[in-house]
């Protein structure tokens, strides 16, 4: 107990020192930092990162405290997964919550749909020929 006890005390001290500087949380981040860190450390952790984004956004939505960037980060993972519909929904939510993201994300969505139309067009051509 003693051995781990003061290590814990040291960690708590660091945490409180850091917390002393910060105000009460304006946004809900959930496990965003840790899961992104784990994902960078090991790419097998991608699904866990995605799940933690979903959870943080759900929780944030309840309190009207969704953190900036989270919907876009989730949308980006879904875009990589090929799930364009969900991706577009999340980009739209980010743009509604944070208009600052609009110039960037509206461009991303435009390119997404252009790419999709092109892909659909190619597919059509293939089936026609």
């Amino acid at each position, binding site marked *: 107990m003693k051995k781990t006890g003061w290590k814990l005390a040291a960690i708590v001290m660091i945490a409180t020192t850091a917390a002393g500087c910060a105000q009460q949380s304006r*946004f809900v981040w959930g496990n965003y930092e840790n899961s992104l860190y784990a994902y960078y450390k090991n790419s097998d952790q991608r699904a866990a990162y995605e799940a933690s984004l979903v959870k943080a956004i759900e929780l944030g939505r309840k309190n009207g405290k969704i953190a900036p960037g989270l919907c876009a*980060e989730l949308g980006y993972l879904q875009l990589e997964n090929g799930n364009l519909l969900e991706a577009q929904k999340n980009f739209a939510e980010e743009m509604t919550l944070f208009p600052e993201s609009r110039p960037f994300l509206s461009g991303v969505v435009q390119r997404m749909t252009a790419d999709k139309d092109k892909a659909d067009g190619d597919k059509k051509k293939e089936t026609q020929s």
Partner: protein
Amino acid sequence: MKLAKIGLLMLGVALAGCVQVPKSKDYAEFRSHDPHSILVVPVINNTTSLTAQDYFLSTVSAPFAERGYYVFPAHMVKSLLEKEGLSDAGLVHQANPTRMGDIFGCDSVLYIQINKWESRYIVISTSTDVALHYRLASCHDGRTLWEDTREVTYSPQASSGNPLAALIAQAIVSALEKADPNYMPLATMANLQAANLPGQGLPAGPYLPDQYRKDQSKFK
């Protein structure tokens, strides 16, 4: 006795990172630009740690967004920049911030350099050390709006009591720290201090409406 008191006082000051009052920064440029959004770009790593920059990126968004700014999705931005052939952080940092403004529509770019990221094993104690340099530049005219340097150290200290038990405990913790030093709490602490310290950090942004433009006493 007197020495012990001074020592205690010094320790107190060192711990009270939030209370220390260095000269306040000049916020005229920052205030006149009034940035609403921050683009966090990949970090320059000046250390020998091969992975510091990736791990570090996960700790930046929250502390700066909590100051009331829209912080762009850090991982998405990093990934897109890589796809555009800008995986080299050096190139991104050299590029004019207005170029980032053209791509992302951001008001400002946050450039961070990691200057120290190390765990030193000294006899029986391990000391973990992180030093960072921050620069926020305007995407509208490229000017520097804010700059800061932070260095944070974590070294587990044995508590008093049985000196031998404490020594052994210290050695165990040191060995643990050395095997897998955890930089993340330190990096988070550095970012929190950089963003929050009165007279040093960032004035409250528009997403903190009750403080936005009302904190001139803390940030002149």
